[in-house]
């Protein structure tokens, strides 16, 4: 392959997907001997006082906490989420029973006859409820799942000597993933092993979560990933939650069972993006220069911890954004509330943090009467600058070049000036960055990725790892990397669908780590194989993760050091027009310039950019998810609005190359970063259009109407 790695090739999976021959889980098992249906808690919070179960016909079963062969908890980051609710329920929608049997209508009839009597407890529906320990403490001593406190420089002295102190609080809401393929699992028993087919991001996570619950050796639990119809974080841990009850049922019944959520159940009870409240207080000197930030981040973690700890970590390590501020203090807390648990979603805490910081920079500029773009320039990070965790920016930072590029593409400068005098039109800009891979020492100490490269006697090479194709193009990009390193035709390199029995654990498909971390292992393994190439012979290469040597060592106790080995960088511009009567926002232009090392395939990366941007604009404007009386009011795809082809114009993007020494052919992460910048840029554009400060997303027409009526 003599051409650049970025040159587009046809995706390995393109024709099968377009022609409808790609078989997702429900296509592989269109009819199942047994079906499963969950029985969910109908209250938000309470104690289960008694249950009354109907007699079931032969062949039907109701499984609950008493049937768990091992420990009634799923091992995620911590073990707080039970397989089945036993004594208490913490959210409306928590699984209490699983009903299995051959006929769906009989299952529904059994479902209708189950009675659970609760002693209700006042639920925590807001962060304030949780902080006030309403209804009594639910987690630890203070309802806090995780707390992080970091500081850099000295924060109190600048506040004492400040000429002016400005502070404001920013809010972001829930978001639903709406992967097009709902949560789908099919499980059976074979010999003395449990086998699960799953539409999932992390086969080894599912296995780990089941070990204690089933009381079985990991090797007796086999997870086979099926082609996955979208995930965005929604299939990182949530398949564990469904796999638990299903595994208990299969363990007991020893027959194949299919568990596919219908869309309504999926939307009502699956995990969501963490809502956030972020307070930023800033000390300024006489000239309006930033002396220090004091930041408080609160995330609504929902009923169980799941991965709130890690989402919070990313929010805390990212909230400083692309600015070198000498003195900064960041406190972060994730709280327990009585809502469906919040969990992973593309961006993983960064979009919330970046929305707050970028909106705050606009607010500061607005209060100081300065141009928001010019105001930011003195603080933009440069190579060698310290990070908020006292690590270092190792790469050359291309923000000046990227700024120039996006100003040319979007005409931001002139439009910004013009729209000062044209009501209801606005344009906004945002900067952002996203760390590649797990935070801190996660890759080195926790994940320890391993991949295999196997060559058969026909000289075809197969890539074995646990990172899954879920739309982002990994089955193509991994093959491109190996093909280039081996100097072998692309058609001769193949991606093996993850199956815990045959692939090594290269870690979960999360954290923008697949290409930057695991892809690099593929490249190194391929280089080894090329050196030792024996045509016509079977060969296997094992490649383990080795931590880059350039990093400032991470200390998990003090949270000091390099939080990430490298960052991807971006700048977005959004232009809007607001209808003066209805206050609906019409997006007129979308621009993005990105630095993600080197794109492994330009078309695949562009697809990520456009898709991520539109998903983020949905988050910014359309995707309202209100919570009342224990449930989300937008419970179906008819009333939870995700963008259609008519909602936003086409996206204009550009990519700036800046090879990363430890990424596959220079690549850094791309999948999440593309989500990070749209909400603050959209907020900034709407702020200009209606001459007010936007401090929350989604930006709803009714909110704009109220803001304008109040004359704010």
């Amino acid at each position: 392959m003599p051409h650049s790695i970025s040159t587009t090739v046809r995706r390995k999976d393109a024709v099968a997907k377009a022609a409808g021959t790609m078989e997702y889980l429900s296509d592989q098992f269109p009819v199942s001997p047994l079906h499963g249906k969950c029985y969910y808690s109908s209250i938000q919070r309470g104690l289960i006082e008694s249950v009354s179960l109907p007699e079931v016909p032969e062949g039907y079963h109701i499984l609950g906490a008493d049937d768990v062969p091992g420990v009634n908890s799923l091992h995620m980051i911590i073990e707080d989420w039970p397989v089945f609710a036993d004594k208490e329920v913490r959210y409306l929608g928590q699984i209490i029973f699983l009903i299995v049997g051959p006929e769906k209508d009989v299952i529904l009839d059994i479902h209708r006859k189950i009675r659970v009597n609760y002693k209700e407890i006042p639920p925590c529906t807001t962060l304030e409820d949780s902080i006030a320990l309403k209804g009594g403490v639910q987690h630890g001593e203070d309802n806090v799942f995780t707390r992080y406190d970091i500081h850099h420089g000295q924060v109190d002295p600048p506040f004492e000597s400040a000429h002016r102190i400005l502070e404001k609080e920013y809010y972001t809401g829930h978001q639903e993933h709406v992967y097009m393929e709902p949560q789908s699992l099919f499980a059976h028993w074979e010999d003395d092993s449990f086998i699960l087919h799953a539409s999932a991001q992390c086969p080894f996570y599912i296995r780990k979560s089941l070990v204690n619950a089933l009381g079985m050796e990991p090797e007796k639990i086999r997870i086979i990933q099926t082609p996955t119809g979208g995930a965005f974080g929604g299939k990182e841990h949530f398949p564990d939650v469904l796999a638990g009850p299903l595994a208990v049922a299969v363990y007991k019944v020893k027959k194949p069972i299919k568990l596919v959520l219908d869309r309504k159940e999926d939307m009502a009870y699956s995990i969501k993006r963490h809502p956030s409240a972020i307070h930023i207080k800033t000390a300024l000197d006489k000239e309006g220069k930033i002396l220090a930030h004091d930041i408080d981040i609160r995330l609504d973690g929902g009923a169980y911890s799941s991965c709130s700890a890690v989402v919070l970590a990313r929010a805390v390590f990212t909230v400083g954004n692309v600015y070198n501020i000498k003195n900064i203090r960041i406190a972060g807390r994730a709280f327990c509330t009585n809502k469906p648990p919040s969990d992973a979603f593309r961006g993983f805490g960064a979009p919330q943090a970046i929305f707050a910081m970028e909106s705050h920079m606009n607010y500061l500029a607005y209060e100081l009467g300065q141009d928001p773009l010019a105001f930011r320039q003195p603080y933009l990070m440069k190579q060698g600058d310290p990070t908020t965790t006292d690590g270092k920016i190792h790469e050359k930072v291309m923000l000046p070049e990227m700024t120039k590029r996006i100003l040319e593409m979007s005409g931001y400068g002139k439009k910004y000036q013009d729209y000062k005098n044209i009501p209801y039109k606005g344009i906004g800009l945002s900067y952002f960055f996203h760390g590649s891979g797990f935070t801190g020492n996660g890759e080195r100490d926790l994940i320890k990725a391993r991949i295999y490269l196997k060559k058969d006697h026909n000289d075809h090479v197969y890539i074995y790892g646990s990172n899954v194709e879920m739309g982002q193009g990994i089955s193509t990009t991994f093959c491109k990397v190996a093909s280039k390193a081996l100097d072998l035709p692309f058609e001769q390199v193949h991606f093996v669908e993850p199956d815990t029995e045959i692939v090594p654990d290269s870690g979960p498909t999360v954290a923008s780590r697949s290409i930057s971390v695991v892809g690099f292992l593929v490249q190194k393994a391929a280089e080894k194989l090329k050196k030792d190439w024996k045509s016509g012979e079977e060969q296997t290469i094992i490649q383990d993760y080795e931590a880059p040597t350039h990093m400032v060592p991470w200390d998990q106790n003090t949270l000091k050091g390099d939080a990430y080995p490298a960052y991807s960088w971006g700048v977005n511009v959004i232009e809007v027009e607001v209808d003066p009567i209805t206050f609906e926002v019409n997006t007129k232009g979308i621009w993005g310039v990105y630095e993600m090392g080197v794109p492994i395939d330009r078309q695949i990366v562009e697809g990520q950019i456009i898709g991520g941007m539109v998903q983020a604009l949905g988050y910014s404007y359309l995707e309202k998810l209100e919570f009342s009386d224990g449930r989300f009011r937008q419970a179906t795809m008819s009333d939870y609005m995700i963008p259609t082809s008519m909602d936003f114009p086409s996206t204009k993007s550009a990519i700036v190359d800046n090879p990363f020494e430890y990424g596959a052919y220079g690549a850094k992460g791309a999948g999440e970063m593309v989500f990070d910048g749209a909400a603050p840029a959209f907020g900034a554009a709407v702020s200009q259009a209606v001459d007010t400060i936007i401090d929350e997303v989604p930006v709803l027409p009714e909110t704009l109407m109220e803001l304008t009526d109040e004359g704010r």
Partner: protein
Amino acid sequence: MKDGKIRFTLNGREVVYEDSPLRRLLDVLREDLGETGVKEGCGEGECGACSILLDGKLVNSCMVAMGTMEGKNLMTIEGLRETEQGKCIIDAFAEAGAVQCGFCIPGMVMAAQSVLQDSPHPSEQDIRKGISGNLCRCTGYDQIIQAVLTASEKGEGLW
């Protein structure tokens, strides 16, 4: 509907159906007839993943009861992919990179066929409108629109 049987044409062949008239066409296609290219995304007529052409019109098969199928002419992705038009669209989707997770794409290909049937030389706006009943959470639509434009250009004369 003589003798309680429902007869319709599926991708050019006659099908005789003898089960409940209340079943959804989507389930019959997937479970009885093996047409698993037709996907269930929402089950309430919102997402378009189960799109088919019913007497030439783009329809969500999750919203069609079998009792209404007598004498109808039905095309699914399984039928379309065998035609020159279908091959052209599928190739254009692959070339434009207009597939990510792929779950909505067979339905999107049906919508593309519907757009091109109505207007062999569609504008970007025609395409945006024509595929707006089909939700895609991955692509942001631009590459899908490019695919339909490419199909229109390369498939000159096919529609």
